[in-house]
């Protein structure tokens, strides 16, 4: 009924009908579920990470837990999942079946090995099965099956480069993505190692090592596996700002294609990921929470955004924000003052409380009228008041040499 905007992109030579693909995770661990995801309109799947025979996968249940305020339980989702329990033979069959059913979708596979032989065997078998792309998990936080148990492969620059090279040797012209962890001292060094190793791109980034919570009566952790618990990989909205920084930092310093992953929960998040350098965006927690139907809003929202902005392709967004991201010391130094919109103000006094106890005593409070007033002599422009205003009635007015600029946060 409505004319749809073309959202297709070319990702490492692969046609994607939108930038939105399902990441290597539970939604791609059953043939039927992956099939449903593609049918619902996702542009591609990366099947859940597989390994070779001889590496038994011992999953522990329950494996999921979450945190957030009551009405929004899943601000962060944690899992102690491991790689797929399915044998490589089965994953091969699935690649073939999905490729046959969806010739125009991206069917990718994710792998994890220990030895050179394992990595290369996996690549060879999946490539032969017809996988469009191979993603290598260098970063499963819940116990690695890499060569140093307990440590993630992508936490070692040398190992990252070495294993990337092994994989790419076997992959040949099949594109390879290396999925890294944000939990490193210097993400740029790791990204450079991936590039030196010859990979086609980086998936930035995996879940963040975390501890979801503790039952304060029994002192048992979450998720609670018969009284015991382990560290979880954290995903969902909570990690979006971390991912955004990871992507930006790689994009600014290394010339490599990036697949954004980790914390995108709607099309706006995806646009942000792309604006700092991601060429496509992977999703997992969103469809796990609300189902594959969420693809409609992702695509519609992106399409309408592109039209409003006058962009032809999603690729027009990629990297758009990067020139504006600078080290703190390089930033301009405007004279900044809070500006309160009296018509929007509802008189809750939260800005006054924030400025009084956590700012600069620069907001005065008229108790009778219930209205705050900015004392510009004291206001340094920190923007704490703006953060607490429930109706976005405060913006920051920035001035340099008579030129005006405003800081407002679009929601």
């Amino acid at each position: 009924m409505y004319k749809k905007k073309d959202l297709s992109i070319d990702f490492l030579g692969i046609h994607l009908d939108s930038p939105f693909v399902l990441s290597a995770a539970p939604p791609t661990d059953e043939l039927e579920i992956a099939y449903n995801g593609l049918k619902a309109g996702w542009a591609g799947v990366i099947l859940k990470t597989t390994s070779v025979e001889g590496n038994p996968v011992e999953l522990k249940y329950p494996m999921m837990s979450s945190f957030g305020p009551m009405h929004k339980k899943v601000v962060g989702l944690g899992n102690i999942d491991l790689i797929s329990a399915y044998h490589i033979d089965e994953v091969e069959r699935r690649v073939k079946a999905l490729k046959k059913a969806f010739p125009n979708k991206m069917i990718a596979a994710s792998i994890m090995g220990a030895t050179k032989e394992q990595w290369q065997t996996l690549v060879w078998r999946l490539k032969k099965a017809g996988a469009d792309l191979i993603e290598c998990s260098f970063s499963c936080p819940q116990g690695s099956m890499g060569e140093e148990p307990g440590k993630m492969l992508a936490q070692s620059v040398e190992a990252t480069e070495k294993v990337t090279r092994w994989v790419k040797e076997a992959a040949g012209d099949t594109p390879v993505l290396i999925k890294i962890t944000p939990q490193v001292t210097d993400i740029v060094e790791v990204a450079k190692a991936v590039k030196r190793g010859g990979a086609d791109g980086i998936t930035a980034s995996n879940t963040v090592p975390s501890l979801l919570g503790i039952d304060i009566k029994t002192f048992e952790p979450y998720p609670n596996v018969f009284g015991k618990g382990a560290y979880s990989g954290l995903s969902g909205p909570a990690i979006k700002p971390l991912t955004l920084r990871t992507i930006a930092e790689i994009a600014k310093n290394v010339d490599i294609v990036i697949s954004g992953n980790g914390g995108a929960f709607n099309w706006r998040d995806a646009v942000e990921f792309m604006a700092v350098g991601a060429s496509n965006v992977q999703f997992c927690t969103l469809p796990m929470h609300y189902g594959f139907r969420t693809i409609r809003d992702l695509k519609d929202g992106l399409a309408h955004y592109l039209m409003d902005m006058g962009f032809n392709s999603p690729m027009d967004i990629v990297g758009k924000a990067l020139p504006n991201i600078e080290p703190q010391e390089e930033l301009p130094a405007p004279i900044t003052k809070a500006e309160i919109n009296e018509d929007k103000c509802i008189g809750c006094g939260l800005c006054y409380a924030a400025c009084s106890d956590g700012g600069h005593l620069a907001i005065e409070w008229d108790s009778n009228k219930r209205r705050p007033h900015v004392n510009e002599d004291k206001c340094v422009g920190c923007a704490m008041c703006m953060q607490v205003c429930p109706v976005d009635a405060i913006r920051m007015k920035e001035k340099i040499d008579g030129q005006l600029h405003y800081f407002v946060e679009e929601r």
Partner: protein
Amino acid sequence: MEEIEKTLTKEQALIEAERCLYCYDAPCEKACPAHVPIPEFIQSIRSGDLRGGREIIEEAHPLIESCGRICPEESFCQSACTRAQIDSPIKIRELHRYITDHTDPAENLELPPANKGKIAIIGGGPAGLACARELRRMGYEPVVFEKKQLGGVPAQEISPTRFPREIEQKEVKFLHQYFITDVKDGKVKSLSDIKGDYKAIFIATGLINELDLDIPGVSLSGVHHAREILRRVKAGNNSGLGKRIGVIGGGNVAVEVASVLMLEDPKRDVEVIYRRGLKELKAFKKEIEEAIDVGVTFQFLAIPKEIKGENGKVSGIVVTRAHLGEPDESGRRHPEPIPNSNFFIPLSDVVIAIGQKASDFFPEVEKDRKGLIKVNDDMMTSVKGVFAGGDIVRGASTVVESVADGKKAAKAIVKFLEGGE
């Protein structure tokens, strides 16, 4: 009769608590006559420390079980809620009730020794109990004179469908146990009836007598006073009324007694007969809605003329149709009778609920023309050392306003006895 309103579920309470903006200098708290620190107790719901929430409310308000149920929140805290400017006000009373329903009275009390002397408190209703508790907290020994039972109107007359007996008793028992030195049931009609060594007196008798309708037939059998019926039902007895009841009046008591009688026997017809219209009803919105829900009907713009009887027993009422004229001194439009519009409504019983009046007790203190006791800014009457508060000063009002009076009077009494602020 079961309580109608259900307590919030944990999910509802948390979502509602999360909506609270936690305003600085909170307007809800200022609008509450007892100044309950509302954002603070809502924060304790968010954090999961309901006991802390109860302590916060109890500090400010001794009758916290009643107010979580019967406070007309739309007139006080909720009318000031900032959140209403975004969408709708926080359900403050229901959050308050969520706390009281999930906690017991805090018995970890730390009270000073009661050694500063006895204060006589005449009347064990909300004003008297609030005053007693404040005085006990400041080291005095409150002695309450009450000829019925402690708790006042909420305990004795408010429908068990809105305020169940066991909940009310939990509240009153707690106050009695910890804050009242003695309860005397002697009938006190004048200051000279108060025998003993009391440092001050607080009169909080409330309004005891009900107004009578000035029309023929009021002495027929089958004509009742509303509060009498409410007391009977609240005490667990049957009202004893028949199948077609007319309730005359338009205030909270009229609507309440109509609901109670309807709930007692849903096969009855209960009709509120009121001389003005729906807009002029003085009852709280929630009570009107509840009455309509249970099946009470309303006969608006009907002025009672004569109660008719057969063999000394009520057979019906003659009313005149009215239309609304100009606003009168109450600010509401005045009902004017339409000539030759009399009609007859057959009834088995007539319940009069047109208001209450002050008694002629305490002739020693100065009163206004309605018989209400006059007090100064410190709640002191014309007699030095004698204070008064609650309905006997304000006229018919709410529990929370009486509580506010009791608290204020206690502070004034201490100031009077000890000097200073």
